[in-house]
């Protein structure tokens, strides 16, 4: 699967690792829903670290769409909520 970390680039991660990433992603989701900034931070950081460690960076000129997207490392809970609440017409330019 291809995972994009916003502001950083895309990583190709072996599908065998999908379960691990999904597990971490669930933790992130719970933190977002609970509005718990601390666990949000650590969950996001864990997930990003794993993607970087397990994945292989795609070259800048690859045009492949991603299967999953992750916020930038320094995103706040509020930032992510805004992103998630966004419609396809909203905040995201391009």
């Amino acid at each position: 699967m291809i995972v994009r970390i916003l502001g950083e680039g895309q990583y190709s991660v072996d599908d065998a690792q999908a379960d691990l990433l999904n597990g971490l992603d669930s933790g992130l989701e719970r933190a977002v829903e609970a509005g718990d900034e601390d666990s949000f931070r650590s969950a996001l950081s864990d997930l990003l670290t794993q993607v970087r460690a397990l994945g292989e960076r795609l070259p800048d000129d690859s045009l492949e769409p991603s299967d999953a997207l992750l916020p930038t490392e320094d995103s706040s809970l509020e930032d992510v909520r805004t992103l998630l609440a966004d419609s396809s017409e909203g905040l995201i330019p391009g």
Partner: protein
Amino acid sequence: MSVMKRLQMIFSAKANKALDNAEDPRETLDYSYQRQLEMLQKVRRGVADVATSRKRLELQTQQLQQQSDKLETQSRQALAAGREDLAREALTRRSGVAQQQADLVTQHAALQAEEEKLTLASQRLQAKVDAFRTRKETIKATYTAAEAQTKIGEAFSGISEEMGDVGLAVQRAEDKTQSMQARAGAIDELLASGALDDASGTAKDDITAELERMSSEGEVELELARLKGEIGPGKAPEAIEGSTSPTAQPAAPQPEQAQPQARPQTEEGRS
């Protein structure tokens, strides 16, 4: 639903919508390419804006440093002149300046990080735009409806995602730059109003004024002493002081004491 999946869907929804709206998918290739070039311009402008703000902060940091140095010199001068109150005032202001400086250092680091991120984003987008241009021409040349449709969809989604990503980065940088500029403007105003004093040294602050007053008083005293030395032979300074200064009332009885020294003529000649 999972966070990373939801985000992916939000980003791809936009690309899909643009594709669905196009009658001939090949049109979207050219249209998209135009948008990409615009976005590249936007990122580069973003980098330039952040750099401008960063330089402004650097200038202000320098100004604050000059101000800090000046206040330290003033506190030394004040202390040397025995004016501890004035020295204390100068040092108090200096600590205020130091706080502003520390603030600027943090902001400068944040801006620098933003500048680096945007520079990288601009490089990534440039690489993708170049790749897209090549792909676009290939797809156009080998056009057979069904096959091209898929290829266009892929290329389009890939670049569209990048555009969304870069667009967000530009937006973030713009927000940060704006709030930074507001702060920088506030510091400029402070410097201009003299509250932090004008580091260019054109306007005199009250500490400088006080120090200058003290120093000019000191010069007057010195000058006075020099004149006294020239005029009097050094034996009767009190008499001369009494006669030269009309306001010196306590000197009134002194002429009698001075008379035994037999210098009435001198006094008459001078008055």
